[in-house]
C-alpha cells in the first residue's frame, strides 16, 4: 500500500466541527501523518470494516471520517484522541481519551453525585441502580449482564456471537420472552458504559456500543 504525502495534517487549518484547531509546533516524521494511529483503525479488528478505505491516502480518511460521522457509520468522536497531537478538538463532552487525567473510578462516582445533586433521594436511587453492573470483570469474557426493568433476575448474554443490533435484540426478545409487538411498543435497549453513564443503544453505532458497554438493560419506554 502506497501512502501518499498529500495534505500535511498538522499545518492545514481545518475545522471538522467548526472548532479551531490549536496547532503546536509539531514534527511530522516521514510520509506518514500521525493519524496512522487511526480513528478508524480499531474497527478493522472487529471485522466488517470497509476494506476499500485502506487504499485511500491517510489524510483523505480524515475527511471521510468527518462526513460519515453524522451517518453513524464510523467511530464515535472519542477516537479523535488517538490521532494528531497538534489538533485538540473538543466535542462538548469528552474529546480526548484519558484527559483530564481523572481516574475512571472517580469519574463514574462523580457522575452519579453530580447529576443527582439537587435531589438526595434520587441520587441514592440512581446510585443503587447505576452501580448494579459492577465492573466488566473478566477481560477475556464476552458475557455481559442483562436486566429487564421490573424483573429482579439478571441474565448473562454472550456478546461475541452478535454482530448487529438485530441479532442481539432477537436473542434478548427470546431470552425474556417478549413478543415482537411488545418490543416495538414498550421496550428500549439501554446500556451502561465504562464511565457509568446510561445511554440508549439506538443512539449509537454498533461498534461504539460494543466497545463501551458494561451491561445492558431493557427499559420500558
Amino acid at each position, binding site marked *: 500500500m502506497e*501512502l501518499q504525502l498529500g495534505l500535511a495534517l498538522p499545518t492545514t487549518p481545518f475545522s471538522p466541527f467548526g472548532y479551531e484547531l*490549536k496547532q*503546536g*509546533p*509539531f*514534527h*511530522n*516524521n*516521514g*510520509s*506518514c501523518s*500521525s493519524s*496512522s*494511529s*487511526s480513528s478508524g*483503525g*480499531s474497527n*478493522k*479488528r472487529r471485522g466488517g470494516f470497509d476494506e476499500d478505505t485502506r487504499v485511500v491516502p491517510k489524510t483523505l480518511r480524515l475527511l471521510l471520517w468527518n462526513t460519515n460521522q453524522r451517518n453513524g457509520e464510523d467511530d464515535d468522536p472519542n477516537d479523535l*484522541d*488517538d*490521532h494528531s*497531537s497538534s489538533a*485538540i478538538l*473538543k466535542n462538548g*463532552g*469528552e474529546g*480526548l*481519551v*484519558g*484527559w*483530564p*487525567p*481523572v*481516574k*475512571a*473510578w*472517580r*469519574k463514574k*462516582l*462523580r457522575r452519579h*453525585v*453530580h447529576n*443527582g*445533586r439537587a435531589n*438526595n433521594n434520587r*441520587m*441514592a436511587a440512581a*446510585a*443503587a441502580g*447505576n*452501580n*448494579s*453492573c*459492577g*465492573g*466488566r*470483570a473478566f*477481560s*477475556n469474557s464476552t458475557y455481559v449482564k442483562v436486566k429487564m426493568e421490573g424483573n429482579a433476575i439478571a441474565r448473562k448474554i454472550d456478546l461475541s456471537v452478535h454482530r448487529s443490533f438485530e441479532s442481539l435484540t432477537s436473542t434478548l426478545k427470546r431470552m425474556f420472552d417478549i413478543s415482537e409487538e411488545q418490543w416495538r411498543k414498550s421496550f428500549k435497549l439501554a446500556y451502561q458504559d465504562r464511565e457509568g453513564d446510561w445511554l440508549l443503544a439506538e443512539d449509537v453505532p454498533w461498534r461504539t456500543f460494543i466497545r463501551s458497554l458494561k451491561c445492558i438493560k431493557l427499559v420500558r419506554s
Partner: protein
Amino acid sequence: MQKKMAYSFPDEVLEHVFSFIQSVKDRNAVSTVCKSWYEIERWCRRKVFIGNCYAVSPRMVINRFPEVRSIELKGKPHFADFNLVPDGWGGYVLPWIVEMAGAYPWLEEIRLKRMVVTDESLELIAKSFKNFKVLVLFSCEGFSTDGLAAIASGCKSLRELDLRESEVDDLSGHWLTHFPETCTSLVSLNISCLGSDEVSFSALERLVGRCPNLRSLRLNRAVTLDKIANILRSAPQLVDFGTGNYAAELRPDVLSNLVGAFSSCKELKSLSGFWDVVPAYLPALYSVCSRLTSLNLSYATIQSPEIIKLVSHCPSLQHLLVLDYIEDSGLEALASSCKDLQELRVFPSDPFGAELNVSLTEQGLVAVSLGCPKLQSVLYFCRRMTNAALVTIAQNCPNFTRFRLCIIEPKTADYLTLEPLDVGFGAIVEHCKDLKRLSLSGLLTDRVFEYIGTYAKKLEMLSVAFAGDSDLGLHHVLSGCESLRKLEIRDCPFGDKALLANAAKLETMRSLWMSSCTVSFGACKLLGQKMPRLNVEVIDEADPPDSRPESCPVDKLYVYRSVSGPRFDMPPFVWTMDEERKILH
C-alpha cells in the same frame, strides 16, 4: 584483616543484624557487599517489592528468595488509570499465585496494584497459604464477590482486606457472611469500591462487633447514614473510618445518635467516604475534627461555605482531599486553619465541562502555599495558572516532594502574559530540591524540559502531556534527570532521536510510556534489537505496526527493563520488538 572479619561472624549473627534492616533499598545494598552476605541476606529476606511484574519472573524471585512472607507487585502502567492501556494488555497475577502456592506455603501478605486478579487467583490464595494475613488490591480488576467469599471463608487469620479503588463484579452482597464466626482477627477492612448492591449489613455488623482489633473500616455506598451510628458504637477503637452514604432526610434523632456515636470514637483520626452528603449532618463530626489528621471529601458535593465550616474545626489536619467546590475562598480558610497541612489534593467536579463552574484558580493554591509551611504533596486541578503564581508557590514551599498540576484545557498559557509556563515550572524544580514526582500541564516548550534536566536531580517520576516542541525536550529529561525511574508521556512531539540517543538510560529506569508521540516503528525495532534487557512493546489496536512503513509513528510505546525477557501473555494488539521472540511468535 577483612578475611578475619568474615569468618568471625557466624551466619546467625549476620542474619540477626540484617533483621533490623527492613527497607528494600538497604536490603539490596546489603546483598551486594560480598557473596556470603548475598547468600545470608537472600535466605532471610521476608519482604519483596516488585515494581513491574514483568521485570522478573516468579521463578526467579522464588529461586533467589526462598523464604518470603510478604510480596508487593505492580502491573499495568500508571496511564492505565486513564483508559490509555487497552483491556487485556496484561498484568495477570495468577501465574505468580500458582508459583508461590508451591514455593511459599507460609506467605502472609500480598499487595497488588493495577493487576488483573481473577476469582481463581483468590481461591488459590485462600487454599494455599495457611497463615495468610493481608490482601491489598489497589486498583485491581477481574474478580467478583465470589472470589472475596473464598478469601473470607478460607483465610482463618485474615487481618487486612483492602480493595481500594478496585473494580469488583458485584454478584452478591452475601460474601460477607462467609467470614466464619471464629474470625476475630480483622484489623483493616476496606470495601469502599463495592457497588451499591445490597451488602449484607447484618453480617457486616456482626463481623465488626467481633473484631476488637479493627482499626480501619471503609464502607461502601450501600451503607446508609442511619446505620453508621450502630457500626461506630460497636467499634469505638477505630482510627480510620470511611462512611457510606452520608445523606438522609434530616431527623433530629438520627442526628443526635450520630453525634453520640462519633464522640465515642476517641481514636478516630481519619475520615473518608461521604458520598451524597447532606450538610446538616456534618456537625456530627465536630467532636472528631480536632483530632482529625486525614479527611477525604473528594466525593462530597458540598459547597465552599460548608467545607470551610468543617475544615475550620480541624486544626490538626495533615491530608485533605477535596473537590474544587472548595474554591479559592475555602483554600484561604484552609491556609489559616490548618497549619500542619502536608498533602492537598483538589479534584475537578466537572472535568469535561467547557465552562468554569467554580471559582477555583491559581490563587487558592498560592494561599495554601503561603499559609501551610509543611505542605509537601500537591495534586491540583484548575483552569488557569500564571508563571508568577508558580514562582511564588515554589518559593513558599521548597519542601515539595510531589507536585502535580493539571490545567484542564491542554496547552493553556499563562493567562496574564500569554506566555508558556516554562518559567513557572522551572521555578518549582529549581527551588524544590527534593522533588520526587512532577506532573506538568499547560503550554510548555522545550525550555521547561531544559530546566527539569538541569535542576530536578531527585526527580523519580515525571508525567508529561501536550508539551514540548522537539526531541530536544525529551533529551533534556533523559540526559539530565539522574534519579528518573518512571517517565510517562502523551501527545508530545518527541521522536526517535532523543529516544535512541538515550537508550542506555532506559535500562536505569523502571519504565517509559509514550503514546501519541512521533516515535517511529523503525526506531522501536532498533531499540528492541540493540537493548536485549529492555522489553520494547508497541501497542496498536488498529493494525500490526509492520503493515505500515517503518517511518510511521507507533500509537503507544511501553519500554521497561526486564531480566526475564519478553513476556508470553501479550494480547494480539501488543507487539514485542525483541528479535528472538518475533521469530518464535
